[in-house]
Structures are given as C-alpha cells and as structure tokens.
C-alpha cells in the first residue's frame, strides 16, 4: 500500500518518539535495578586469617567469612584414603580429591549446602555425618563425603572450596 509523504513523516515521528521514550524509560529504570545489587562495601568484604596450629587431627572448626560459615578440617589418614579411593566419574559433580585440597590433610570448605543454603552437620563429634562420614544437611537430607563432595540427596554440587592460601604452616588466609 503506497503511502502519502505526509503519512510517512507522521510514522517516522511516532516511531522515533516511542523509541526514544522506551530507551529513556529503560535508562531511568536501570539505576533502580542496579541499586539492589550488592553495594561497594559489601563487595569489599575482605579476607580472614585463621590460626590452624591448635586443630587436632580429625578435628574441624567453623569460622565466619563474608557472613558465611567456612569449615577447616584436619583430615585423618582414613578420611584422606576414603576420599581418594572414589572414582570421580561416578560422582554427580565429578571432581578428584586432589583438585579440592592444597595440602592433603587440610580440607577447607564453604559450609553452605548447595541445595538450599543450610549449614550441614558434621562439625561436632556428636553430629550426624551422613552415610559417607563427611557432612549431612538436616534440611533436605544431602550427604557429603570426606572431601565435601555430594554423594546422596537433592544437592546438585559439591561444597564450594573458597579461595585460600597458606601463609605459613600455622596460618591460612581465606579470601
């Protein structure tokens, strides 16, 4: 359908007005949406240094890092062997034990279940440790092994390993 030049001009004006309006509205909304993201001071939440000299073999401590619990465990020989024996390809989230630790006896994990964010049990001697003798999430029944890998239950991923470095034999810096 052929249009008169007058209509073309009207169409152009309408289209450009609507487009500019839409872009302007989006530009206006963006700061509001972005303001809901973590603020600068939240992002800057720093690192934590932990003295590990007092941790006995088989013992595990919980420290707070960026508002989350972090488990630091000095594993026993049996626990290390149990973690190493597993074939990574058999796992839901395949990962070798060697890829999850820097020093074999020290296991550092973010203590947040990858299902819905509960803190798994297993830090205290009296706690339930689940079928694989690692950690057990009481909320929805996820079982983690001695490397913090998901073995049974609804969680999709292994427990996260936070970034950390050994400052010396007795100190770990997390973050």
């Amino acid at each position, binding site marked *: 359908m052929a249009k008169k030049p007058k209509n073309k001009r009207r169409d152009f004006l309408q289209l450009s007005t609507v487009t500019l309006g839409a872009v302007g509205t989006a530009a206006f909304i963006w700061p509001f949406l972005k303001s809901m*993201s973590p603020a600068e001071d939240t992002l800057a939440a720093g690192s934590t240094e932990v003295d590990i000299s007092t941790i006995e073999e088989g013992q595990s401590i919980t420290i707070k890092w960026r*508002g*989350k619990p972090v488990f630091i465990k000095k594993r026993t020989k049996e626990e290390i062997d149990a973690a190493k024996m597993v074939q990574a390809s058999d796992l839901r989230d395949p990962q070798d034990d060697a890829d999850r630790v820097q020093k074999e006896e020290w296991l550092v994990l973010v203590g947040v279940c990858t299902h*819905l964010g*509960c*803190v*798994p049990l297993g830090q205290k001697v009296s706690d339930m440790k689940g079928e694989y003798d690692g950690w057990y999430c*009481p909320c929805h*029944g996820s079982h983690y092994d001695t490397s913090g890998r998901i073995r049974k239950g*609804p969680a999709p991923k292994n427990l996260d390993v936070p970034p950390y470095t050994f400052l010396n034999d007795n100190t770990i810096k997390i973050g």
Partner: protein
Amino acid sequence: MDKNRKVHQFKNPVLNWIEFRLPIISYFKKEYGDYPMPKNCNYFWSFGALATITLVTMIVSGIFLAMNYTPHTDMAFDSVERIMRDVNYGWLMRYIHSNGAAFFFIIVYIHIVRAMYFGSYKYPRELNWILGVFIFLLMMATSFLGYTLPWGQMSYWGATVITNLFSAIPFIGEGLKTWLLGDYNVGNATLNRFFALHYVLPFVIFGVVGLHVAAVHVHGSNNPDGIDIKTNNDSVNFFPYMLIKDTVAMCAFGVAISAVIFFGPNLMAEVDNYIPADPLVTPAHIVPNWYLAPFYAILRAVPDKLGGVLLMFGAIVILFVLPWLDRSKVRSCNYRPIYKWFMMGFFVNFFALGYVGMLPAEGLYLLIARVGLLYYFGFFFIITPFVGWIEKPSKLPLSISDVYAKNIAPNIGGGEKGIPSPAMQKDTYL
C-alpha cells in the same frame, strides 16, 4: 462535558452537592446497596468480605508495628521483643498481626475452595479467578517477606532456603539470587529491602482486591447452584440482606480469632523463631508456615533441585489456567456426580500435603508427599479435562427460585412469601 448527564437526586442536600461533583454516592448505592445477590448464597459467600476485613486489619496492625520496629540485623530481634514487653499493647498488635496472617490464609483457602467447588472460575468469571490467584501469589510473597522481619532462626533460615530456590534457575540463578538479596547471603541489605517490600505489597494487594471486586460485580456473584439470576425473584439486594449475613459471619470470625489471639497466640508459631538468627547454625528442622506447607511438601517430594522448584511454582501457576482445563459447562459440583468426589479428594490431598510438609521428608512422609504430588497435578491435567467429557451432570434447576420451590416448603417458594422481592426493598435507605 455532558450537560445532559442525569444526576441522581437524594433527599439530603449535602449528598446532592457531592453527587453533582463526584457521583460516588450513586456508585456505592449501585454496587453495595441495590447490588443483586443470588438469594441461595450460603455462608461460603461471606469469605470474600471476611478476607477484605482481615486485609484491612493486617494493614492497620502492621502500620502500628512498623512504628516500633527496626529493620537492622543487630536490632530487629530486640525491637520485636521490645514491642512484646515494653510498648503499650505492643503484644496485642503483634499477636493480631501474626495470627491475622494465619487466619487470612484460612479465609482465603476457604474462599478458593468455594470458588473451585461451585465453579465460580468458569465463564464469565475467568478474569476474576485470575485476579484472585494473583492476590494469592502476592499474599504468599508478603507473608514470606514479613516472616523474615523478626530475625529469629526460622526467619533467617526460611529466607535463606526460599531465596536459594532462585539459584536453581540455570545460568542466571546465582546472579538473580545475589541481586534479590543485595549480598551473597541473607544479611542486612536483605532485611532492609524485605521490610520495604513487606510494607508496600499489602497496598498492591488492596488495589488488586479492588479490581477483583469490580470484576465480580460485572456479572454478579455465583451461587451454590451455579445458575444465573434470571428474574428479580432470584436475588436479594446486598443491603441489608447480605450485609447482615456477612456481619453475622464476621462476628463468628471475630470470636474465633480472638480465642487464638488471647488464649493461644503462639499455637501457630515456631518455637525456634524466638532464638535470634544465627548464620552459622541451621535449626535441625526447618519448618515453613503451615499455610505454605503444601507447596513446600511438593518442593521436597522431588529429588532434583530444579525439578522441585519448577513443580512447586507450577503448582501455583496451574491455577491460572483452571478455567480452560475444565471442559464442563456446569458450574456447581452439586450437579456433577463424578467430579464432585475428585474435587473433595483434591481438598483432602492438599490438606495431606500440608501435613507432611511440616514433617521431615523421609520414609512414609516422603511417600505420601509423592503420591499427593501426583494427585495434585493429575487432578488438573487428567481428571479435570476428562471428567468433563465423560460425566453426565444432574438436571439443573430452571431458576434459583425453582431450587426453593423444590427443596424447601412450597409455600415460600418463588420468593413470593417469606423473602420479599427486590421491588419491595427499594428506597429503604438514604
């Protein structure tokens, strides 16, 4: 402006003055005075009014609580304790608000059961039903946000579990969760925004309720027999008949909620929420509010994170399309001999899901949750469409008056005696 506009004339000159400038008085007369209600409506039809009154009560008690509440992680728990111990009648405000939320859900669930059993969602009230489901969604969001505010253990871990649901979404999940929380875990940023949203959402609900009521007034209320009003003999005016009936219902409701507020204010509360939030210790058993438990049971019945989340939200979204899943033109289940029993089964099943949703997800409870999940979705996707095909409904009465002619004594049938016809009720007020 239309100079020929017909202005309603009242005896009172002040009313006439207002009416000429803003025809609000004739509007209320039309919508809440002369508005025809089917005369066979039973007490199930009072729950809409009860829900509205409860919403207003929640808003009022909430505003007064907000005057004493501090939305900060260090002070929230203590400010709630101060409301309970030191603020004059603070305990009353809080118990009204916390129990009012539970009663709001009881009322709305009964309101939904009414709409489902008597087929109120069918033509021409589908949009009305959609608005209602939308209100239900907003209510769930609001109650979840509000439950976070006291900053007890259940508040904190409930918020953690529910916001983690979003992390199940592939690719964008983690980012979306962080954006919603304003932090990498539930923290002060989260509490602040939850308070802001918990304050504003009830007013949004109020607006949608306005649309919901306006929509039902277009075609009028459904009734237990699910047939339309045909003559004046089928209806009574809202004022005074239904207003009085709703008032009686409201008195009964007032007695029930007062009994709980004054004699068992923590019956529906979780003990763990009187422990301040601790991000390092998860309670042994996280329990949702009972009114969200059926959906929580569905979440836990699925052994897959994303699958569980999708089915849980799906269980609510499916309600939106119910008017199109149901193939039967007969509204009321009273006239649907087969579907009626499946419908009652659905209500029992929903109750059972809620029950196991409060218990640990293991053994027999998990099995019940899974069977319940199958029936829940089977009801919508299989039973509802197919029963509509195969069922032969009972014979519908010719009119609402006809119901009375048959079922009640013949001498008051047809609304000629006993119940005055609307023509006789006109001009009884203003």
